[in-house]
């Protein structure tokens, strides 16, 4: 199994990244703040505006270090991608599948089954762990409806109905989000999913987490040589990493949702970690963001057993394992794509 290397996060707005021999050197006003050998890093995520020197970009490209830029609120701006990895035949086959509704819907169905069943597992697990503190009939209802969606997906024949079922399942699942919050209920009110911009604290954290996760999924896909912009479920749109979004579906609940609610319930975040703008949008502030990233980075190293390959892997290698399985399925080395079933 691949070694999970470290991720470097730059959150200070006046930090500049440059290169000195084999080191990534972080500077502020020309003075060196810190330095790291590139060999221990596989990911650089910049929330700063100053950027990097071209020579560091070159170092990253040559050594397959992914270099991404996000705004301080976590909105994805772009990433540098070096030489494309992998085999052109693999990508051609990927495009053929994407063009073929009958073949691509099989992948989409599998991913969404995994998504809904992992949402459902979280609902059931939460109900079991916190029985007495929550409205059990609501949880039972949601569980039943999610189960129904799973059955519907199995029979679905076209992508539009699939989108409909997925949307319904997501709305059903969101109904228990308020009950996932056990403490500080007045601060962490969830009134439906809002994005661009998020309108409450829960949505602010979900958006930030999904943004980081999408980034991880995109680098995973590109590492195995797939085109992250051509998806099987999400349609093509300029600048949208559709395949990465397809992959994200499998992990939304398992990686991000659980993480966000554990931050809330362990009281690691509170109302002083958020900024509210004039238009009502809510974002994590500097303090909140750094708590989020620190815990996120710790969470990455949790070891889980991957049910399909039956091997212990670190949590953030899961997208990479799935990308590999996806590539195998596309190459026909596997009879069908095995999605991640939590």
């Amino acid at each position, binding site marked *: 199994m691949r070694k999970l290397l470290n991720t470097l*996060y730059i959150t200070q707005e006046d930090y500049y990244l440059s290169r000195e021999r084999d080191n990534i050197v972080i500077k502020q006003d020309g003075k060196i703040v810190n330095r*790291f050998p590139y060999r221990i890093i596989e990911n650089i995520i910049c929330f700063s505006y100053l950027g990097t020197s071209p020579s560091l970009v070159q170092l990253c490209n040559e050594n397959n270090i992914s270099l991404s830029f996000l705004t301080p609120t976590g909105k994805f701006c772009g990433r540098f991608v070096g030489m494309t990895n992998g085999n052109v035949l693999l990508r051609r086959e990927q495009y053929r599948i994407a063009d073929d509704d009958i073949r691509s819907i099989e992948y989409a169905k599998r991913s969404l089954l995994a998504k809904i069943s992992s949402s459902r597992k979280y609902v059931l697990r939460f109900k079991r762990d916190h029985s007495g503190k929550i409205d059990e009939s609501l949880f039972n209802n949601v569980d039943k409806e999610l189960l129904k969606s799973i059955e519907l997906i199995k029979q679905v024949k076209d992508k539009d109905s699939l989108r409909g079922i997925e949307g319904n399942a997501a709305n059903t699942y969101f109904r228990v989000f308020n009950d996932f919050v056990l403490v500080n209920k007045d601060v962490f009110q969830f009134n439906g999913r809002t994005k661009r911009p998020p309108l409450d604290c829960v949505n602010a954290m979900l958006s930030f987490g999904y943004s980081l996760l999408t980034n991880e999924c995109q680098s995973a896909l590109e590492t195995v040589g797939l085109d992250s912009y051509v998806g099987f479920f999400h349609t093509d749109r300029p600048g949208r990493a559709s395949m990465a979004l397809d992959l994200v579906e499998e992990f939304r609940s398992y990686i991000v949702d659980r993480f966000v609610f554990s931050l809330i319930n362990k009281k690691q975040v509170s109302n002083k970690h958020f900024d509210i703008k004039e238009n009502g949008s809510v974002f994590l502030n500097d303090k909140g963001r750094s708590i989020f990233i620190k815990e996120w*980075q710790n969470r990455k190293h949790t070891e889980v057993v991957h049910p399909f390959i039956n091997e212990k892997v670190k949590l953030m290698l899961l997208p990479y394992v799935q990308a590999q399985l996806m590539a195998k399925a596309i190459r026909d080395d596997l009879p069908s794509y095995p999605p991640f079933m939590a």
Partner: protein
Amino acid sequence: MMILVTYDVNTETKQGRKRLRHVANLCVDYGQRVQNSVFECSVVPAEFVELKGKLADIINPELDSIRFYLLGKNWQNRVEQMGNNDSYDPDKDVLLL
């Protein structure tokens, strides 16, 4: 795996000082300086071989010496620290700046 590199380069001559500089630069490429002439490098076996090869090309085997301590994968248990410490753990620490 984690390796600890320590060196002693004879600096009596100009060439010696040059060798010292080169050895130090090379170690910075691969790891972090935890003390003067002591480096911790988190490397894969191939990189370790590469590092040794490069160091062998620089030093004068009659005057200088380099030692490698192989701390393995669970190296965190094998290191204790006393006093001032501003080092980072390349495998586990959150590199958040």
